[in-house]
């Protein structure tokens, strides 16, 4: 039995599924690992994807009362029941991966407490040793790196490693786990439309993002630009603080992690904290009037210009380029 296990709530969507499989594949370094898919009904498609990503054992943990619930506070009870039902994970310290992101981190902490394990949280690297799990974590705003050693387990963690490589024709042993435990009641929330008209950051192929140097008019132009390019809108922490963009569009170490093909950064200086939220695979295009801004050190394409004149010119250029 593998000591590495990825637990994936299916209500969190395809992106969480892929991110967790990518992480498991990366951390396993070619060794076998298991996947637990948690939902209210089994999905052969997801089980097949896990197998193609290299999972040797796939557990379909089904709790009918889960419905569409995506709340970690509820999921933790069902997942703990599933993990208790799975045969012993080996004599070493087992490592349980959750999908990266705030919900995964919350669930990892809850599971660690529930199952008396170690809460390793949001890691930048994970390594399995004979008698321990080693976890590297960013601290002090990404300026320091600490290494935690979990010598008793299980250990629960999240890590980002991109999308999994899929093998055609791979197969895994499939097991069904029927869960019946009593689930806690989720918070009763009154939901109201917030007026957001742009797609979410998650999964966007192009993100237009603004920083401290951009005001309300500038963000209106950025939104127009994002719509025009078929992308979506993001912002840095100072832009969120200034009320230019809602926090759910915040990119950075304390916000969302994005992995678009193109990241168009306007008026963003390029702090470590912000760049920690942008995938290394993304191509950064920087617009900044300060030629010394750090963002130009990491961008592929740069425009030294004030956004006040450049954005209207860019929008006009895009309008002219539309045929017909």
């Amino acid at each position: 039995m593998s000591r590495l296990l990825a637990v994936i709530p299916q209500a969190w969507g395809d992106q969480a599924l892929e991110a967790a499989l990518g992480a498991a594949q990366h951390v396993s370094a070619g060794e076998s690992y298991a996947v637990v898919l948690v939902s209210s009904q089994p999905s052969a498609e997801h089980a097949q994807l896990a197998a193609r990503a290299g999972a040797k054992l796939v557990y379909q943990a089904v709790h009918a009362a889960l419905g569409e619930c995506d709340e970690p506070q509820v999921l933790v009870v069902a997942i703990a029941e599933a993990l208790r039902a799975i045969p012993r994970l080996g004599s070493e310290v087992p490592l349980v991966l959750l999908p990266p992101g705030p919900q995964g981190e919350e669930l990892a902490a809850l599971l660690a407490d529930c199952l008396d394990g170690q809460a390793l949280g949001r890691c930048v690297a994970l390594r399995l040793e004979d008698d321990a799990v080693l976890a590297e974590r960013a601290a002090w705003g990404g300026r320091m790196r600490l290494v935690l050693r979990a010598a008793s387990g299980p250990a629960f963690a999240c890590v980002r490693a991109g999308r999994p490589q899929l093998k055609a024709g791979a197969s895994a042993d499939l097991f069904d786990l029927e869960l019946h435990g009593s689930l806690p009641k989720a918070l009763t929330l009154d939901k109201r439309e917030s007026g957001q008209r742009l797609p979410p950051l998650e999964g966007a192929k192009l993100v237009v993002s603004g920083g401290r140097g951009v005001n309300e008019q500038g963000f209106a132009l950025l939104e127009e630009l994002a719509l025009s390019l078929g992308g979506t809108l993001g912002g840095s922490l100072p832009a969120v603080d200034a009320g230019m963009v809602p926090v759910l569009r915040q990119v950075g170490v304390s916000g969302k992690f994005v992995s678009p093909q193109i990241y168009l950064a306007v008026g963003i200086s390029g702090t470590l904290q912000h760049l920690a939220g942008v995938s290394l695979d993304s191509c950064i295009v920087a617009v900044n009037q300060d030629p010394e801004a750090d963002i130009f050190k990491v961008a592929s394409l740069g425009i030294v210009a004030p956004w006040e004149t450049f954005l209207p010119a860019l929008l006009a250029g895009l309008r002219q380029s539309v045929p017909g």
Partner: protein
Amino acid sequence: MNILVLLAGVADIRFPLHPIVLSSEAVIQEQGSPRRVLSPFDEAALEIALKLRDARPETQIDVLLLDGCNSENLLRSVAAFCPDSLQCLQLQPCQLWDARQTAVQIAGLIKRDYPGHELILLGRELGDLDEGSIAVLLARRLGRAQLAMAQFGQWQNEQLWLMRERGTCEEWLQVDQPLLASVTNDRRNKLRHPLMKNVMQAKRMTFTQVTASAPERVGLSLSQLENAPVIARGGQCRLLSGDIAEQAKALVGWLKEQGVNS
């Protein structure tokens, strides 16, 4: 309503980081002249509490600020907002990298000293070593419901409501049971400036310290602490030349080459 606000402070990212080392006893030692300030999340938690007190002056705000370097100055800056009480919180042992340990320590203190506080507010990350787990585990240890990523709070018909955004929705929660809310930054909770007379008064204050302790947990240890490696990015920035119109045209052309639809 009684509100407890937990604050941690972080190293000021506008300045180079002070030297931080791991001693042979695996204790983190911060050296030099650390510049510790409230984080955006600390500030947001404090501002929500202040706004609720503005609207209902009978609201009591008690604040615990984690001990650490530069605590005296940080305590004074918080005192300038006139909380009803303010204490420096010392953890024993102090292992903020272990969220379970930290949550057990703080939960024990809250149960002992603040059992009747209906609302606990803290930033979604508590200090420089937390990545969001402490709030989750603290709520669990206290047996309280948790609202993660709260952005705003207001009274409506004598009832307190807290709000967060998810997807295209605002989610509002009526606080009708003891609750812990981890707060994130938002334009509505940007921390106000204190009155100058209160700043001056805070300079003359002295502060008490309270200790939260729990036996050291086994199984998890801090084995290394080092500067973060420089992450290699593609870079090799090609600057577009020409006037604004030419640069814009060049970018439009480049975007088309990348297959971007417009």
